[in-house]
């Protein structure tokens, strides 16, 4: 499946791309454990609203994040094609709810450019950089920033 494992080839990187509304994002596949369909999500009341809740991932409790809300793009629309990207972080499974998942593409690390000014302003802290495909510009997410706990998030909410 992975022809250009990023760990084998420093220059190449396999990026999974997905959409939140019109915006396209990419995440290094090395971080993605699996992609699952949307199942029952149990809401956790009184948690920050970008936390959709928890779900049963093969007997483990996974936290599900609404990536749209997290990136301050507004609520992620949940449709037939919506998927949850499961990331493993410090022994814990965290799911990112996205509107729909597109291709996985291989890119050259050298092609990653700094984010444009306007991107930096809104989601700057979550975006590592951007790269271009034939069709569009894709923002590459910084996994650790996305999964980080929200210190002071409530104050700015």
């Amino acid at each position: 499946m992975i022809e250009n494992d990023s760990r084998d080839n420093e220059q190449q990187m396999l990026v999974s791309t997905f959409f939140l509304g019109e915006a396209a994002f990419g995440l290094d596949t090395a971080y993605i454990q699996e992609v699952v369909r949307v199942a029952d999500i149990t809401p956790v009341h009184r948690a920050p609203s970008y936390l959709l809740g928890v779900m049963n991932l093969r007997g483990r409790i996974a936290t599900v994040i609404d990536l749209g809300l997290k990136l301050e793009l507004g609520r992620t629309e949940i449709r037939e094609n919506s998927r949850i990207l499961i990331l493993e972080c410090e022994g814990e499974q965290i799911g990112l709810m996205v509107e729909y998942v597109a291709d996985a593409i291989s890119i050259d690390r050298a092609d990653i450019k700094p984010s444009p000014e306007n991107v930096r302003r809104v989601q700057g802290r979550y975006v590592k950089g951007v790269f271009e495909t034939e069709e569009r510009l894709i923002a590459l997410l910084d996994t650790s920033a996305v999964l980080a706990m929200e210190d002071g998030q409530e104050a700015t909410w």
Partner: protein
Amino acid sequence: MSGFEDDLQKEFVAEALEHLANIEADLLTIEEGGANIDEELVNKVFRAAHSIKGGSSFLGLNKIKDLAHKAETVLDMVRSRQITPNPETTNILLGAFDKLREMIANAAESENADILEHVESLNRLATSYLAAGQKESLGTTAVFLPEHESAPVSIPETDLQRAKRTGQFIYSVQYDLIHDIERKNKNVLSVFNELYDSGEILDCALDFEAVGGLDEDISNKIPLRLVFATILDPDVVGTLLDVEAENITLIFDPNGAPESPAQTAVSQIDPAPSPAGAPRVEALARPRVEVSAPPVAQAPPTTFVPPAALPANDKQEAASTNKAVASAAESTLRVGVDLLESLMNLAGELVLSRNQLREAVAKKDHRALEVTSQRINLVTSELQDAIMQTRMQPIGNVFGKFPRVVRDIAHATNKEINLDIRGKEVELDKSLVEGLSDPLTHMIRNAADHGIEPRAERIRAGKNGLGTIRLEARHEAGLVVVEVADDGKGLDPRKIADTALKKGLITQDKLQRMSDKDKIGLAFLPGLSTAEQVTDLSGRGVGMDVVKTNLDRLGGKIEIESELGSGTLLRIKLPLTLAIIPSLVLTARGQRFAIPQINVVELLRIRAEQVKKRIEVVGDAEVLKLRDEIVPLVRFVDFLGVPRSYFDPSTGQNEMCRRTSLADRRSPRYEGGDDAGGPQTANAWSDRRRKDDRRSSAESDIEIVVLTTGIMKYGLVVDSFQNTEEIVVKPLGRHFKGLQEYAGATIMGDGKVALILDVNGLAALADLRSLSGSSRAMQLQTEAENEHLKDLLALLLFQNAPDEVCAVPLDMVLRIERIGGDQIETAGGRRTMQYRGVSLPLVTLSDVSRVKQIDEKSGLVVIVSNVHGSEVGLLGAMPVDVVESKSAIDQSIHRQPGIAGSMIIRDTTVLLTDIYELVSAVYPEWGVPRAAMPTAEKQVALTVLLAEDSDFFRTQVKRFIEEEGFSVLTAPDGEAAWEVLDKYADIVRAVVTDIEMPRLSGLGLTRRIRSDPRFSSMPVIGLTSLAGDQDIAAGQAAGITDYQIKLDRDKLIESLRDLLQARLA
């Protein structure tokens, strides 16, 4: 070794170790019982020894067999009451079982073990208790030669005598390992186990002589001969044994001569057996025949190992075998059949799903593929859960070894220590149970070795000579709590602090700001505890940091509480991450939540029409009236706020989030589509609630679960309760760490996640402590909790005049009779009636008290009591009733001759009749003391201390006792009584005490009295209003001399008199 035998040996080892697991505790319990033998328990231990003997005998593990046999003989003597268990016998048996365990754990090497010492002690023990004529039986063997058998059967004389005594038949049974056992899908050990249920296997051997026939293929038959003792007679035994009748020979009939005329020969063997321990006679019964084909258990030649050849370093040997024991024990795990069954089901489902998956793949059916994948997903997680559950073990597995530890330390240090174990059944993950073993051992050792003082020192300190260590496990607020508490000398915070300072572990500056509690906590500082002088000074603290480190690794917490002089409490809190807890599942807004059952007090449904009566608004809070208590209420939906946005797969819709502010902790409820946000004021809140018409609608029954945090109770209003389920607690992700209201999450049967509520967190969230309503509720609750200290008084209510309700303490009432007015005879101004052939004096309240005349129309009753040794009837009118009341007794308003006081029962004033006073007033001549009073000078010295918290009873009882010529000192509680006693130690001759009192109870007072040498023989009379057998037992355990009922004046005085006279004499 062949595979067959190898497996069998493994099974034998596992089974034997299991048998041995609880032996220590059982032996200690048996010792405790002394001459009062618990036959069932002795039987259990006997069976353990017996089954080990059987199995080892089959496997040719002769040393194990011999030792087990000796232990069995001694246990049989205990069972038949020839030996009374005492510490000596227990020590010998414990030693023997320790050795057995050691040998079994290392079964392959067991033939080289040295059992001489143990065999000799057991023999000595048995011999010393045997009657003179029986002594020689110990080492002898009776040999039978059954008719149809080639080999003689030898039975140890002790076994034969046991069979005779208990009326057992002895059979020689020929099994064929292949046809009777293997082909029937059994194995030898399981056959043995079946037989143990109905008898005893005295011997077993592979017997090749018996086959002998030329017409049979020798390799096709492996004969096993058992000598089996049972009470089953020859007609039925065949069914049990499940072999052909011709293979069963009766060799001993308890009812008469043996069926097969045996040549009974008794051969004498050396009473102290050879170190090799192999009975020689038995060797006859097991001729060595070399057979190459069958993979049989053949007894390895017993080799004699001279003691000198044994490993010189015993310690080393012990250490290595201990390790072997541990590893052998860990290699198997007991799993409940239920769980195993559910695992089987899940495995079955998994197979089914796999088949569906293959089909779906083959057909390239995308839809089916998805369904199957989901199914497999579900099954797999359930399977995982179930497998996790197999790891749950009762904590009792660790606790089991502590009685022995404590006993040994007590023995070595010459102390008396009682170990009180509670909560053995609490389940924990296997790894936690194992991980707890070391720290707990450490804590128990510390408590026994350093905490509890020697008896003399304890008595000097005014404590009970018997020290107590309490070891308790329980679920609390979603955690597993394990406590080790001792009533020893406690820790000295100053000494710990000094040491910490000296070692440079803490600065003077910091120390000054520390409370005593903090200072005691320093005991956990790494480096402090290894210091020897701490051990000497404080007597504690050895390795406490090690304990803490161990627990940290398990994710546990340890707390320490200690009071110098009165003891130390160590509390371990383990996370329930791995634990399975029974929980109540409830729903609110269609979502399920679990609450640990341990926090649930009760479930209530309040009917719509009751709501107004039961639920009240105090300030801005709702409270529930629950019997005598006022309980604050929390509406769970308020806490939930508006449903958060979530995807509803049933509608495919994304529910909208209508949340207002995260800061709005109480997320007010919304009516209709009101989306407007902002926290509402308390006024708006209660206004809205008042408007709420839920209470008047028909379907507005309210479901409340009453919860406890351990400190306080509150009611949670929910939509509905579901059921109680055992749930596996799983942690929530770190994003939710800040939410104190959740203890974790669990996966329900349908694969969905339910959140587990934290009862403490919820209470804090609802800010229960600061609500005006609930602080009042707390106050009311405190009052209610003190309620139990008030005496429950059972009263017989009767009418005097129609609007005058009177009462007599029920304890004073002998009988109640309905009579007609014409039965009363009046002569000389005194009333009597003919009653059972004698004249019964009658009194009524109006004889002495200013009450109305009795109304005879409503039907008269005579309440018969015993006053000063004579029966007296108190006239009353119907109806009569019996109530139990805790109401306060007022002694001022209605007090007058014949009436002790009044109380409010069911909103009515009830006059409490003082029947003694009444009778004394009507029959003054009765009050003459019957027994000779002590002489005047003695009388002055006869001072009685009365401890009683109820003013009413205190004055009443004081009056009784004073009227008898004693002088009385009173105290309103145990502490005060102790102060008085201490001060007037020289003149107080007896103590009369209530049981339930604030500060120090009557039992506590008695214990204190008993542990002070000045008062060791002081008579203590316990007063109760209602004495249950349990209370009496507890009182006797504390050292109470006699129990009396509070208002039974005559009995109390009599008891007091008897006790004092006994003392004066």
